[in-house]
């Protein structure tokens, strides 16, 4: 069964999620990944949104994290202060999905500027919730196409913390969150090693690891136990296409 790069990434992202995870979820691919996991191996997964929505049951594909379809039929809606203070900072969030224009060797993210901050070449949207999600969620995931410009050795600006300059430097600051758990790309998976450096731990069927190394801005190490991911199952793809019948998110490059 054929699938797009977005479908491949979404299926592999969904497989990262565990039952009973409480996921701080964005729209688009992360939302689809959560719904896929919820309908397959994680029936007790709880989706919460920085807009203050908890336990959403949208009757349509939400087009933003503030979509009204997330509210109708949700278990709870609280203020943004509460979702960030009483849920995220307090420690109720197990998983965060991160976006961002740049992800570096240690999983630090830049969503702020390309170039100098005071005189940016490119002004990006900024942190939104990501600065605190990266610090306080137990595990963080990234879903993005594997392109060199997205994976520099070091970000121009650190909008949110991965392992900073190495796992020990994050640990020393004592944030409650565990930091980046995996980067899901259209070529495979990158995961932090004991030093917090992102290394290639899996490739998708038919992908040459060298292709991933060529599209990464630092000398990408291959994990000793490099594996090949299971191709998306027909059942997974069927559910995904039910969730996004128009292919709003699944029929493009993703990210």
């Amino acid at each position, binding site marked *: 069964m054929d699938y797009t790069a977005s479908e491949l990434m979404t299926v592999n992202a969904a497989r990262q999620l565990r039952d009973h995870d409480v996921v701080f979820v964005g729209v688009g691919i992360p939302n689809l990944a959560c719904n896929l996991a919820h309908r397959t191996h994680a029936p007790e997964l709880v989706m919460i949104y920085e807009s*203050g929505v908890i336990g959403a049951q949208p009757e349509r594909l939400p087009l933003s994290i503030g979509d009204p379809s997330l509210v*109708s039929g949700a278990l709870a809606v609280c203020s943004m202060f509460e979702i960030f203070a009483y849920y*995220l900072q307090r420690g109720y969030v197990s998983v965060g999905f991160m976006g961002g224009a740049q992800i570096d060797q240690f999983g630090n993210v830049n969503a702020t500027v390309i170039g100098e901050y005071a005189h940016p070449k490119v002004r990006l949207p*900024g942190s*939104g919730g990501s600065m*605190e999600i990266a*610090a306080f969620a137990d595990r963080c995931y990234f879903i993005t196409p594997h392109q060199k410009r997205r994976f520099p050795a070091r970000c121009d600006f*650190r909008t949110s*913390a991965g392992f900073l300059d190495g796992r020990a430097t994050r640990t020393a600051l004592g944030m409650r969150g565990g930091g980046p758990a995996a980067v899901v790309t259209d070529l495979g998976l990158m995961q932090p090693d004991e030093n917090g450096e992102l290394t290639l731990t899996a490739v998708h069927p038919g992908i040459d690891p060298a292709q991933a190394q060529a599209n990464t801005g630092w000398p990408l190490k291959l994990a000793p136990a490099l594996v090949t991911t299971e191709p998306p199952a027909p059942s997974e793809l069927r559910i995904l296409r039910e969730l996004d019948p128009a292919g709003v998110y699944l029929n493009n490059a993703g990210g």
Partner: protein
Amino acid sequence: MSKLVSLQAAVAEHVHDGDCVYAAGFTHLIPFAAGHEIIRQGRRDLVLARATPDLIYDQMVAAGCARKLIFSYTGNPGVGSLRVVRQHIEQGKLEWEEYSHFSMIVRLAAGAAGLPFLPMNPTGAGDLERVNPNFRRLPNPYGDGEVVTVPALQPDVAIIHAQRADAAGNCHLWGIIGEQKEAAFAAHRVILTAEEIVSAEVIRSDPNRTLISGLAVTAVCHVPYCAHPSYTQGYYDRDNPFYLEWDRLSSEADTVKAWLDEWVYGVPDRDHYWQKLGPETRARLQVEPRWSEPVNYGKH
């Protein structure tokens, strides 16, 4: 005591050149009608504060109302970038002050509580702290570690849109409640717009639903459809095609100017704007009702 006035009168009296304005609402209940009235009245040098500037501030910046932007995420929600704001910043034509969502809202919470500042736990992402001197550090007086602090934000005027309010400004607001309460209590003046003006008895039938009491409200304006192209939960849907259209037309200064001429300067108020949208758009935004289960307060 009735505080009912027209939106024109409320903006004329309570929004001044140079003011810090907080038009509240996270994606939901964004008071576009008030933003357009501020544009029509030609306000200048405003400091526009919003966690998510959204299209309302893209339009106000394009119209020349703003000197500075205070924000935490300057994107077109679910679509992409805010082109006008982005261009003005990249070209050095707009000052800005930047936070994360949490630190932005904590600034409002401190303002609402009448405190000089509030603390947060450190995030390890040092760059925003480095470029914004409003982030400070304090030692934890009870043990190890530090907290990060931000100063109170008390806007000169907050603008809040609600589903229903009485004439004194006691309002029922539901769906995504974002930062509305904190913005209202933080601000020195509050303009409340509402889809419906109801009797105090409706408000009194459910006092726990009152998000903001009239004590914190300066002026009340009856402005149906105030939030279009954003939405009002239970009243009308988000006009997503317009968000996509804005992404296209905001790439060129003259198409932006043409849009402002037609849809802001070219209409006297929100009623005319809503009529001008036409029957198809109005029909597309309708929503079927879905009612809450009532609760019993008891005749105690």
